């Protein structure tokens, strides 16, 4: 039985520290899995994050343990892990374009209409951090959808919300994130 399955079981039993253990395990698993994939594919190919997460789910969690609760925990952690990975990547690329040595994206240098997709991701992330302080539930929907690639139904199940609530939170979140980013210019 994989380590991840053990942690999921621990979470199921209500052990308090168990959920903290999940994220680093999932993070490592995703990286290893992608690395293994890379060995078989030509360079310059890209991976869909959602496909990777699903593959990890099927490989690392045995059939008998794929309850909807475990699924919720796993995909929640995977969304967080993906966020970390993708933000790191976007930062690296952005740094390259702006010249090395800049640790953080300098917003004042940006013309919103001219942002690259990677800059967008970083701006979204920064706005998201602000939203997390204001409305944690709404921010969580964003993380699951944007970084985890979950659809509305899956988010609803994961967070125990109604589908309509998820739709509302997502619609509102998009508007607010954009507004915040735009206001910085």
């Amino acid at each position, binding site marked *: 039985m994989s380590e991840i399955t053990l942690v999921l079981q621990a979470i199921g039993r209500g052990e308090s520290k168990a959920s903290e253990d999940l994220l680093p395990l999932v993070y490592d698993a*995703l990286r290893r899995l992608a690395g293994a994939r890379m060995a078989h594919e030509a360079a310059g190919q890209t991976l869909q994050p959602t496909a990777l997460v699903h593959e990890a789910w099927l490989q690392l969690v045995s059939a008998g343990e794929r309850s909807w609760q475990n699924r919720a925990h796993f995909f929640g952690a995977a969304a967080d892990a993906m966020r970390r*990975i993708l933000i790191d990547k976007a930062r*690296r690329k952005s740094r390259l374009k702006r010249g090395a040595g800049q640790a953080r994206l300098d917003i004042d240098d940006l013309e919103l209409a001219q942002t690259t997709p990677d800059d967008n*991701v970083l701006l979204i992330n920064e706005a998201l951090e602000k939203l997390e302080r204001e409305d944690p539930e709404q921010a969580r929907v964003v993380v699951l959808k*944007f970084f985890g690639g979950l659809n509305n139904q899956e988010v609803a199940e994961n967070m125990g919300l109604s589908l309509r609530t998820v739709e509302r939170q997502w*619609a*509102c979140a998009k*508007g607010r994130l954009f507004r915040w980013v735009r206001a910085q210019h």
Partner: protein
Amino acid sequence: MSASKQVEDAVFFTALNLTDLGQRKLFLDQACAGNPGLRAAVEDLLAAQGDAEHFIAKGRAALHLPTEAFASGMATGADEPTRLDEEIGTRVGRYKLLQRIGEGGCGVVYMAEQEEPVHRRVALKEIKLGMDTKSVIARFDAERQALALMDHPNIARVLDAGATEAGRPYFVMELVRGVRITEYCDQNHLDTRQRLELFIQACHAIQHAHHKGVVHRDIKPSNILVTMHDGVPVPKVIDFGIAKAIEGKLTEHTLFTAYEQLVGTPAYMSPEQAEMSGLDVDTRSDIYSLGVLLYELLTGRTPFDGKELMKSGLDQMRRTLREKEPQRPSNILTTLHGTELKATAEHRHAEAPKLISLLKGDLDWIVMKALEKDRARRYETANGLAMDVERYLLNEPVVARPPSRLYRFQKLVRRNKLVFASGAAVSLALVIGLGVSTVLFLKEKEAWREQARLREEAQRSQQRENELRLQAEAKEKINQAAIYVSQERFDEADQLLETIKTLPPKPSFDGVNAYRSVGEWLALQGRWREAANRFLPLMQIDRLDEWRVVTLDYQACGAVLAECGDRERYAQFCQTAVINYGATTNGDMAGRILKTCLLMPPGKDLMAQLRLMAEVADQYFAPIPEKDFPEWAVIHLSLWDYRQSNYGQAEAWGQRLAGRGKGTALEATARVIMAMSCYKSGQAEEARGELAQGRALIEGKFKAGLDHGNGADGFWFDWIFARLLLREADGLLGA
């Protein structure tokens, strides 16, 4: 999270879902009454909606991972080398890329070299909209026939189309070395007359294409280049057929990509194109774009400023293009500042005041006619437009005329119905000059009623919308539950079905089966109440199955309800069954339903209602000879007789089955009924004997474990049935 944010979110989301702008306005009026801050915040969110979607989508598009991102823990430089540098010198199909020429709204343009069948230089445009390549190419192939027929000195031919290895579509065109028409005119200080002459040629090209059945759809200065042939400037229209190939069925996805195009050149889009409502874009859309081009050639700017359009968001942009009347060319020059005006005039080799007077009059009207919002009022053909321009050049009278006062007034009223109706004196003042204020005043009352009706309509449609939404959600959930069922994830399916409150009118086969399977799964665990909650909706939605299946469902439902011991619900259920099937002429069906309704001793009313069914069943079964008599029919006939207190008759039926020794649920049930009948007719000894045998079978089955079962030995609900009667018999005999 603050309460005000909650309110803002809720109001915003509801408003967002009211796509009719009139309704939306009414809703906001009510929801934000006395709270201008809320109104402003919500409208800001609404206005930003389109841009927000675009922004987030752009971010999402960036979320692919080059595999190198995982390999190296630290940053190395090029984990994703820019495709372009890779591509130069590479081949795309039979074309060798030489140099990057430019970048458009939807793709990059390269100069490329073709070797076979002919050696020449071409322009290769790669489209990167993230769309379905196959369908784009397919659509282009469809266009290609038409495009091949086009042969005109002012049209750059489209030669080929294909897909790169990475799956991006590309188009190959005649290479046109030239500059944009607007740039050319400005750089060479062409005067108005010379510009018009070039413009006429462009119109002829478009006309030729229209004649061949091809609409360009994307006319703008960057698509009309001017090259020199023997010292003579020749305009060439490029990019034919590409816009159509890319544009397709409007899905949410293509809406974003269409937005990309919009973001490029909103100024040139015709109102019907901007609507993107799937309305057929025809040749008159090109006429509009030609009108914009003419406007720009004459005045140096477009009727609506591109940047301004983009700033206000998608909805506002559409509305502007759809409703706002642009300024006449001569007028707009008067709004320019000194230096701008001077520069514009210089480009046109004229003095400012002379330029303005030149445009005033006929030229103004030609442009405005081409720019009409209502496409029926534009020029019919590009030639028509060209000819009017020619007439102007020859000082002949033109077709275009300023619109009549009445027409303009009608447009004004239509656009501002609510404003006029509110009786604001200001708006009345606007029309006093046209002398129809009295007419408006009378219309005021009508308009108030109109508003009230709109409010009601809004509420009703909101309710309808909610209802439809719930149904659609329910349908989705049921489908998902069906998938869970097929994967034997009954728990998850059950949880999902639990959340459904509104049943959709026509769920799928699989959906209906989801309810049934989950119900059975619950019943087999002894969770009777929950099982009942799955079977009852099944009764409502199961219209798709054949009657045999339906009656099995009824039996299952009845058994489960009776097992719950909930008399009231069981009684209601029987009522429903009688209402739905009481008048059936199918004896078989009647028998099964009858049986189901007799599980608990029925009241007088129910008995009366069941009588008809019993007769139908009787008539059906009575004539069948003994050797062919179906076993299961015995139960309903015998049970009916028992309930009617025809004990002898009930016993007789039972005798048919007794002693067959097969150990089926049928047999067990028959024995129990016999036991009760015997007891009631004074044969206590016999009764006890039969009951013991029946009990042995039943208890044996339940001890071994209840399962789905089959038609021969008995389904699971047949055994529940038997056990229910056994309990009744125990009560009777006082075992």
